[in-house]
Structures are given as C-alpha cells and as structure tokens.
C-alpha cells in the first residue's frame, strides 16, 4: 500500500465523518423541546396564582426543626394538578413533533430515548410530589448517595428538575455540548433557586413568580438561540 492508498483511506474516513456530522446536525431540533418547556413554565404562572394552599400537613417534632415549633407545609392546589398534565402533554407533543420532522426531512430520529426518559422522570416527579404532599420534609435525607436537607428535597422533586434532567438526556442523544451546557445552567438555576436578587415578599401571592419567570426565560432564550443557530447553519450549507 502506498501513501496514495493512505490518502484515499483518509478521504474515505473524512467523507464518512462529514456525512455523519451532517445527519446529526439535521436530526437536531432542540429549540422545540426548549420552547415547549419554556411555554409550560410561563403558563404555570397564572395557573399557580389561581390556586390556593391545600393539603396542609403539620409536624410538631420535625427533625432538624426548631424545638417546640410546629412545622406546616401545604401545596398549591392548581400547580399540583397542572404540572403532571403539562409535563406529560409536553413529552407527547415533542415526540409528535420529532416524528413529523423525521418524515419531512427523510431521516430517522433518535428522540425515543429522550421521550422515554422524560416520561419516566415526569412520572417519578409526580409520584414523589404525591408522596411529599403527605409529609413534612425536614431534617436530612439520603438520596442516591447524596445527603440532602428537607427543603432542598422539595427542589429536587420539583418539575423543573425533571425538565433539566430530560434536557441532559437529550443533549447526550443529540451529542450536543451546547445543549448539555444549557441543561446544566438551567438545573443550577432551578435546583439552586437562583433569583438574581429578585424576590417578592413571601406573604404575597406572587412570591413564587420570580423563579418561574427566570427558569422560563432561560428555556425560551436558549430555544431562540438554538433556532437562530440552526437557521444560520442551514443558510450557510445552502449557499456553500
């Protein structure tokens, strides 16, 4: 074999890699799941505002809580019903969208693991929320090797965590480092309850809103970014 043969082999390999990259690029449509989750996050604002405190449970001897003080928690009646329906509807819509896209473009899709992971996470979050609604989570808990405090556990089993983890699965399926970065930033903001200093008095019925506004903005801005990048790439390929 000569260096000529080596060059041909290199050309063959680079052709194969370029084609694989092109197919992967054309299969991606991360802007849509981000848009859907941004939309359901914003829709949760009026829904949550219309709800009322329900399912009040109290505990007088809460572990880690102040001694002799009763700790009570309640959940929002409307949000409690809204999120399970919204999450499942979102995954069904995303699966439908990817199937349509696959047919229109003429290439298969790898979205099935994402939709399955998303639905499993959604069901897990729903089950955990129902479980948590009957007890006061205070003190420490061991969760998959991590030690978390009760109030932190409420954030882990929140719908935002299911959305963030499912986005990480999509990033792995799409082999997209950009989407993985978005998912990590979103999870840090959602689970860490980052509010950039914007807080509304806890006695207000809008106290929940800043977090939903910030989380929704991260999702929608990312969706716009991915859509713009995809459009730019398509134009660049078209004129090449």
């Amino acid at each position: 074999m000569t260096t000529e043969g080596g060059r041909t082999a290199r050309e063959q390999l680079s052709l194969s890699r370029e084609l694989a990259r092109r197919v992967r690029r054309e299969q991606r449509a991360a802007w849509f799941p981000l848009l859907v989750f941004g939309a359901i996050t914003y829709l949760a604002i009026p829904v949550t505002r219309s709800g009322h405190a329900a399912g009040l449970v109290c505990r007088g001897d809460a572990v880690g809580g102040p001694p002799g003080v009763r700790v009570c928690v309640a959940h929002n009646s409307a949000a409690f019903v809204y999120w399970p329906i919204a999450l499942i509807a979102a995954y069904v819509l995303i699966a439908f969208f990817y199937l349509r896209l696959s047919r229109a473009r003429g290439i298969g899709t790898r979205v099935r693991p994402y939709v399955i992971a998303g639905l499993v996470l959604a069901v897990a979050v729903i089950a955990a929320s129902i479980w948590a609604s009957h007890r006061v989570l205070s003190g420490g808990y061991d969760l998959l090797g991590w030690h978390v405090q009760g109030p932190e556990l409420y954030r882990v089993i929140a719908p935002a965590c299911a959305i963030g983890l499912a986005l990480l699965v999509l990033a792995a399926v799409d082999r997209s480092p950009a989407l993985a970065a978005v998912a990590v930033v979103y999870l840090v903001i959602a689970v860490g309850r980052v509010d950039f200093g914007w807080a509304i008095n806890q006695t207000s019925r809008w106290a929940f809103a800043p977090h939903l506004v910030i989380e929704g903005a991260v999702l929608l801005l990312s969706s716009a970014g991915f859509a713009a990048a995809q459009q730019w790439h398509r134009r660049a390929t078209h004129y090449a």
Partner: protein
Amino acid sequence: MSSHPVNGLDDVVHQRVRLGILTVAHEARQVEFGYLRTTLELTGGNLSQHLATLENAGLITITKGYEGKRPRTWVSLTKEGRRALRQEVAHLKRLIDQVEQRGTPD
C-alpha cells in the same frame, strides 16, 4: 492471509458512495431515498444501483410505502450492515495509522 489492513477492506462497502449510504443509514437509523439522493448528489438511477448492490449483500433493507399519496422508499441497515460499516471504519483507521507510521511510500 496477510494481516495488512487493505486485505480487510470489503469491495461492496469500500466504494465511496456505498460507504456514504451506510454511514447515513447508520446515523439516521432509517433514511428516505430522496434524502440520500440529495445528500450524496446522485441521480435516482445511480442511487438505485448502489442500493441494489447493498441489498443483495444483505447490508440494508429497503421498505417501500406511501405517505399520504406520495410513494416513499426507506432504507435501513441490517445487523450485518452495521458490522460491515464498523469493520470498514476500523480497517481505514488501521490503514491510515500504518501509512503514517511508515512515513514514506512503499
């Protein structure tokens, strides 16, 4: 049999267009005839010939159907096709490595 990687190259798979078809079908799981024609910049007749070669070698399956009133032809890799593609890529990598290690023409 020599262990030189060139001996491992399969003529059916090594051909440029057919390697392209297998690569696209592998990444996409299922690919439509029109997408392959556009992506690989082929005529319909030329693509059909390459698909027939791959199908006869048992590397792909071809499914014909309709979507609404539009006829559609979908191509997907068989287990054998996935294995052949994996082997071809491995042989190409070994070949490049060997040429680069040698540095000079034979």
